[in-house]
Structure formats: C-alpha cells, structure tokens
C-alpha cells in the first residue's frame, strides 16, 4: 500500500483537484484505490457525490470503536473508494491529542487496509497541526501543489523547515507547480527558472484551467468530462511522474 498525501498550508492551491484526479487515474489503471477526505470542508466527497458524514464523527473514528471499513463508500468509478469527510474533522487535533502516540494514529487506522488498497490518497486540510504531523508520518510521499508566486514559495520553505525541525524525511516532499497562469510574467519566470532549493520538484506543472473549476459543477474528475483538456493531460503526466518516484523509493 502506498500512501500519497496532497498537502499545503495554504488553501486553494489545487490539493483536492490533485488528489481526486490522481486517484481516478490510479483506479482507471486497475489499482484498488482509496481517497480519504480529511478536509472538514468535504470538497473531495462533494466531487464524488458522497455525503460528507461519518456516523459518530471524527472522535469515534479515531477512537477506533467502529471499523474504518464501515465508513468507506464506493464511488461511481470501479476500484475507487472514498472515506468521506465530516464537519467534526475540524476538531481532529483534539481527538488525536487524547490518543496514545498521537502522531501515529492515521498510520494505525490505515494499517488494516494494507492488502485491500494499492494506493491511498490523503486529501489534507490546509493547516499545520497534529493532523498534518499524522499525515507526514503515514504518507510515503507528500505532494505539495505550489502556485508559482513569491508567497507560495515562502510557504513551501516553511514546510521544509517544519520537516527538518521535526526530524521528518524531507525526501517525502514532492512539490510541483499548480494553477500556472502563463499570462502572468511572475508565474512564467518562476516555473521556467525554478528555485534551486526546491528539491524533488516534479517536472510536470498543472496549468490554470477553468475545466478544473468545472469539476464542481460536473461533480466528477476531469477525465470523465474533459479527458482531452490540457489540465487532464497534465494530471496524467503528473501521475506518471509520481509513480516513478514511488517505484524509485520502494
């Protein structure tokens, strides 16, 4: 089982779009895939038309009183399941703190699915908290969608610093440029001449594309309604690159 998180401290950078489209591509290849919507806003659940509700809320889930499997829903796509969001996830830090080994909880919850799913995507909430620490611990790779602006690059540096300070393996971080708007000079110059301190920067960047926004109205991954769009093609290329990284680290 390979756990892939899509993470950034900033919101609105394309985390959910990345998790949803990559998970869809993985499942299309025939790999049993789970996407866990950890964001209380529940955007990934919305895209897959699944009610963002966990009976008993996040507390019950962390306490492990019920099998995680009971909360998983099949999506409209074969081999792609979803663990929906719940509004109570906003208090997830509190529940985690109460548990033993608070940083290992997500890892522990996912363990029984080792043979069930080949890929698990974690769609993370935008923050840096105990939830994020759990995600960094459980994930084999952390994809960091980054908008090519000065502030976003600064945020990425903060994430790397956090990794260093907390003795986490920084090679897990896989940044890539997201929502790239070629009409903007700043975007172009950052993408074409990317900062040298962005180790493991993936070559593929995802363009700014209104089709990505239309995922909300179609409530489906890009490949389902705009398979030939530039962004859909870019997600395919990104997925190929991510897979190469995963096999490299095996």
């Amino acid at each position, binding site marked *: 089982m390979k756990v892939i998180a899509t993470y950034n401290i900033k919101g609105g950078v394309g985390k959910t779009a990345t998790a949803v489209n990559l998970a869809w591509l993985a499942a*299309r290849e*025939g*790999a*049993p895939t789970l996407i866990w919507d950890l964001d209380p806003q529940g955007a990934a659940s919305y895209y897959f*038309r699944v009610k963002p509700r966990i009976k008993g809320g996040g507390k019950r889930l962390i306490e492990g009183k019920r099998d995680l499997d009971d909360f998983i829903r099949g999506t409209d796509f074969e081999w792609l399941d979803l663990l929906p969001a719940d509004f109570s996830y906003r208090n997830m830090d509190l529940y985690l703190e109460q548990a033993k080994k608070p940083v290992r909880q997500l890892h522990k919850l996912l363990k029984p699915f080792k043979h069930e799913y080949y890929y698990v995507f974690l769609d993370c909430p935008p923050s840096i908290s105990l939830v994020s620490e759990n995600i960094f611990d459980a994930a084999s790779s952390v994809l960091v969608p980054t908008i090519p602006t000065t502030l976003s690059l600064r945020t990425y540096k903060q994430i790397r610093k956090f990794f260093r300070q907390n003795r986490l393996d920084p090679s897990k971080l896989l940044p890539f440029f997201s929502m790239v708007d070629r009409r903007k000079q700043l975007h172009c110059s950052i993408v074409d001449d990317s900062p040298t301190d962005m180790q493991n920067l993936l070559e593929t960047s995802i363009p700014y594309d209104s089709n990505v926004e239309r995922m909300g109205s179609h*409530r489906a991954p890009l490949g389902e309604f705009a398979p030939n769009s530039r962004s859909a093609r870019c997600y395919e290329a990104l997925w190929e690159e991510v897979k190469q990284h995963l096999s490299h680290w095996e």
Partner: protein
Amino acid sequence: MRIEFIIPEGVRFEDLQSTIQKNNRILTEPSRMADRTYYDSFDWRLYLNNSLLEGTRDGSENLLVWRPLKGKGRDLRLRTGRMPRFARDLPAGQFRDLLEPVLEMRELASRVRIRSRTHTLRVLNRDEKTVAYLVVEENTLPRQQGKRPGKLDDRAIIIPVKGYPKPCNELVKFLQASGLTPAQHDLMLAALATIGEIPGSYSSKLNLKLDPAMRADRATKVILHRLLEVMLQNEDGTRTGTDSEFLHDFRVAIRRTRSALTQIKEVFPKQTTERYKTEFAWMGTITSPSRDLDVYLLNFDKYRDSLPAAVQADIEPLREFLIRHQKIELRALVKALNSARYRRLIKNWRDFLEQPVNERSTLKNSWRPVTEVACERIWRIYRRVIREGNAINAESPADDLHELRKTCKKLRYLMEFFQSLYPATRIRELIRKLKTLQENLGDFQDYEVQVTTLKTFSHQMVAEGEVSPDTLLAMGMLIDGLERRQHQARKTFTGRFADFSLSKNQGHFRKLFASSGEPQV
C-alpha cells in the same frame, strides 16, 4: 461481491428495464458487444486457486480482470497494452505481485471465449450518485476449438457499490420476483462445460487407486500407463517450448518410468525391461540439454540479483547465450521427437502396456499381490537409505551424497507409485519427511551441477567469441556464490539426516512397510 442470476427464456432486458425504471432513478449506459477470453495455465493453476482471469479487448488495450470463483474477495483489474504470456510480462504492481506466485513459470493460455451483448443500468440516488449496477448479459459461444457456435445462459448481474447495501438488496428482491434464479456457477464454468473442457483435469501427479490384491504385473502396467499418459499430455507443449513446465513434466514422467522399470523387479520378462530401459534412457538423454538451459533461464534473475549491483549488468550476455542455445537445443529435441525411433517407442510401449498380462508368467513377482511387492521394495530401499546415510561423515566424498540422493529418489518414486495402498495421512507424512531430506540433497547436487555447467558455458562462450572479460568475471563470482551455497547445504545435511533417521521415524516406516519376517534396519 457480484450476485449473478440466470434469466429464463421469455424474460427480455427491455421488460426488466422498464419495470426497474418505474421505481428507481436509472441511468442506462449504451449497450456494448464484448469478446471475453478466459485464461489459465495448462495445469489450471488459476482455477485450482479458486479464481478466473478474464481478458477483454478494449480498443488498443486489454482489460484484465482476475476474480475469485467462489466466496468473497476483491477483483483485481489491470489495463495493459499486450496480453501478457507470462506473469513476468505484467507491469510491476499488485496484480503481478499476486499473480506471479500462483502462475510461476507457466504460460497463460486461452481456455474459452464468450461473446456478450451487455446492457448496464446504474441505479442512482438523489445526488445522481451510482449506488448499484445491474448488468444484463446476452451470451453466446463463438466458434472455437472446432466446436460450433452456441448459446449460453443470459445473465443478470448485480454489482453492489461499497457502503450502499440497500439498493442492492432491493435489486435482488426484484429479480427474484421477476422469475430469475440465482446462478450456481460462474459463466466461465458453463462455457467450459459446453465446449467439453473439464477445468482442473490435468495433473502430473499419479492419482491412482490400486487394489492391494491386484497382481503386481498388472498394477505396474497401470502405473506405467498413467505415466505414458502424462508424457503424451505434455508432448505438444514440449515441442513448442511455450513454457518450461511441459518439458519438466515430460521428463519427470520419463524418469519415473525408468525408475519403475528398474525398481519393480521381476514383473516383466528381463528382455522387455532391458529394452525399454535403454529406450527411456535415450529419452532422458535427448531431453536433458534443453532442461539444463531452462533451469538456468528460470533462475537467471535470482543469479543476477545475487551479484553485487555494479556487476549485475555484466552477466546479461550469459542470458543471451542461454536463449540462443535453448533455441538450438529445442530444435534438436523436436527432431528427436519426430524420429521413427521415438514414434516406434511410444507405439510399442503403449501396445505392451495395453496387452493383458501373461497369466501364466513364472516370474517371481508377477502374480504376487501388489501390496506385498510394494512393501518389500519400499522397505528394502528405505533400509538402503538409512545405511548409506549413516555411513556419511564430514570426510565422506561428495559422491556418497550423490549416491544417497539417487537412493532417496528411488524410495520417493516407489512410495508415490504405491501411495494408494496405504493409509493416506500416514504415507503422506512419511513422504513429507523424505522430501525435506531430498531438498537438502537436491540443493547440494544442483549447486555442483550448476558450477560445472557454468564452467562449460564459459568455455563455450569463449570458443564462440565476443565474450567480455567482465562477463567471465561475473560468471566467476556466480560460481563462487554457488560453491558457498553448496558448502552450506553440506553443513545442513547432518542435521537433516539425523531428523529423518530418528528412531521414531524409523518406527513409522517399519510399521507401514516391513512385514514381521523382514530384516530390521
């Protein structure tokens, strides 16, 4: 888990569709024609693993679905460009990881094809989310294996969506109320039965049921006839060289035949026995070079991985050498199998085995009950194993271990020939114990043979030119590794033999095979 129903004649898809639509939100997908091929190995490894592998051509790709035949368990699916011949041809991933140990070196062969028109209805909830699928299949058998096209059951299949049990239960109730009956078997099994294929029918095992009172000569003919059957079943695959297991099973049947001719003494006239011993020895010789090369190719990745990463690439020319020579040896083998000598041997041998036994034979063992002869032979060879094993110490030459290995093999074959004459669990347990000893002796011998053959290969490669010093160096490292492992096997022998020859185990052998008047170990 999918739930399948058989659609009785007279019930049409359109009728089911219009009734369901009355009470449910339905999305009907366009109907599709699909040609599905079901794959398995020659010896039905997937079927025996309670699974089936279905391949559907989808544009330029193949969609492979590997699913359980019975019970729960998740389907695995894979999109791939070319249909893989072997598990090793699959891209790295879960599908391959799980299929490889089941299929091992065997080739996937098409067992049956089904043509279906499929209609898919998606049951939607208020959010327009799919909460269950109903797939209706109109199935036919296209012309195949010389069989005419035919009709198969039409089926309705409910595919539940995880986390939404209710709509699925409602569909079950609806189909039952519409007069559909739950299918007992997968459609593939129905298709195989229609074309007259019996899944799981091949086995290289003897699987005989001998009557203890049967005359020994007659029982020996039964054993040898079964071995001839196995040989013939594997002959075509041996000729084409599709996968190495055909030749392997072919050779095992030959070896067992030779062993039976030698070990079950005084049942056939000496002249007959000698004649066929010579002929089957010839068969052993002609099949040997191909098998040696197969063994190297099967183990090649393991060999390569045993070398330090920096020199792993250097060994690749050896693989090319092996593949080239394997083709040459296969051609020679096919030539021998096409020869008049081989054809004559098979014909005469079959005639001999199918002839009734000579009721007035004066040969010592021919008329005795098979169980008596079996006990006598097994007990005698067992005692030889113990004697030879006990005589081996740290200074004994390698030849002593080889001799013991051969004696153990004789014992194993005898126990397998006559297995059905003894209580199943007890003889199985003794075979298992013997097998553990044989594995150790086999390793010891195999490493030695591999070292010798690798040396021969290196000389051959030099003689053929174009071999780099790096390759020879890598082969040298391989030889070193094999010698180390052989040494290790030798060290393990003492413990293994001590376990096998424990007085408790000797007692089990004695109880099963020694009659009261027989000499003890």
